[in-house]
């Protein structure tokens, strides 16, 4: 395997930086919410993060399903990359949510259904990543994690509808509502910009992560085809007399 196959591209970093900057500026310049005040600015990162997590885990599901069908490792890498990025975004949503929760609800965390289910979703995909560590055999790993990757997706609807199924503290849908968003248009626009920027960021991250995954797999393959230690050589003829 020649190294030229593994050009390390730089542009994704640039894209991520730009997208991040634009989101920040947008979130800071828009006029704050009447009720929430400055705090509402957190929303422009909190909500897109959550939605991007959905997107990422959705892509993981697709990649997994495609792997089970096509049995090509490319799909497995897509699933992995997306899951890992999704975990990051979920973590971001939770983290920001907690920062937001402290002043608004007066506590970092509470028993609210959406919070709980978001946390569980976070753990399941951590589990997905952990599951991948339990074997070095590329296809065994892909198969096993693919099954989970498909099943775990049920949590997206769970998290999304949780606010309806269990009445809790957390904001009910204000944008996703059928009768149009019940929010100031400038806020909606800013939110949409943020979401768009986050999506481009996601795409860039995917490129980076898949690139890395290729390298990792290559290393594994190399290790497994290289002339490693021979198991049998560990055993030699005993010489008891050395002891006496």
């Amino acid at each position: 395997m020649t190294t030229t196959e593994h050009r390390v591209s730089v542009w994704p970093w640039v894209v991520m930086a730009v997208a991040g900057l634009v989101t920040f500026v947008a979130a800071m310049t828009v006029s704050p919410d009447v009720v929430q005040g400055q705090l509402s600015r957190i929303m422009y990162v909190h909500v897109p993060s959550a939605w991007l997590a959905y997107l990422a885990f959705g892509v993981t599901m697709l990649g997994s399903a495609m792997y089970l069908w096509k049995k090509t490792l490319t799909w497995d890498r897509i699933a992995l990359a997306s899951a890992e990025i999704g975990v990051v975004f979920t973590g971001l949503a939770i983290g920001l949510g907690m920062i937001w929760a402290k002043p608004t609800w007066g506590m970092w965390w509470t028993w609210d259904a959406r919070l709980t289910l978001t946390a569980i979703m976070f753990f399941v995909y951590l589990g997905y990543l952990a599951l991948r560590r339990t074997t070095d055999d590329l296809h065994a790993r892909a198969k096993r994690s693919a099954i989970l990757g498909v099943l775990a997706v049920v949590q997206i609807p769970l998290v999304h509808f949780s606010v309806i199924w269990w009445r809790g503290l957390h904001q009910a849908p204000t944008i996703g509502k059928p009768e149009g968003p019940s929010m100031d248009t400038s806020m909606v626009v800013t939110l949409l910009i943020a979401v768009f920027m986050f999506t481009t960021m996601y795409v860039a991250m995917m490129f980076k992560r898949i690139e890395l995954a290729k390298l990792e797999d290559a290393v594994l393959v190399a290790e497994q085809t290289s002339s490693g230690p021979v198991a049998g050589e560990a055993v030699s003829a005993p010489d008891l007399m050395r002891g006496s």
Partner: protein
Amino acid sequence: MSFFHQVMTITRRDLLRERRSGEVLWVTLPFGAIALLLVPLAIGTDAPTLTKIGPGMFWIIVMLFGVLIAIRQTNAETTAQRDLVALTGLDPAAIYVGKSLASFLLLLVFELVLGIVTIALYDVAPSDLGVLLAVFVLAAGGLSLLGTLAAGIVATGQSATALVPLLVAPLSVPLLLGATQALEAIQLSRSSLSWVLLMTIVVLLLAVAGVLSARPLQETT
């Protein structure tokens, strides 16, 4: 040989082993019952609260022990035993269904006994037995399919066993949701159909996933 016959072979084996070891009947079941008995002790007996949390408690216990029941043998199975089963040439899909079926039956018993304890302890009056039964069956089915599938996913090495809870518990949320909401619905004599449907869908999903993944999973072990 017919798929059904293969399934029954595995189910019979598992039930026979259970009858000998009595693990579920004599350890898991009493523990579950004790857990339910201890709850009032722990949270201080106060009738309205108990009635409120009763069904929830019941489902939590069923959920936890259901998984323990469904993954019990896999942890115990030795390489020699796995080899034996593999060389009988049984279809992995049949093995999956057979194992699930055995766990399902055990879980049903588990649910019924604990259900009685719950009713006695938390005086929750069960209404609309039809729906109740449907929910019990679906919950038991879902949990056993899920547990068996998870056990299969991780049946490769010790390190993998670690992931069973991470896989199972969260994925059982929709089952838990469906079960609790359906029962709440019949309590408030609202329609529980949508929740029963939700559970049915989850069960079917798990069955399909398990059957389709049975071979690929066995190949990797």
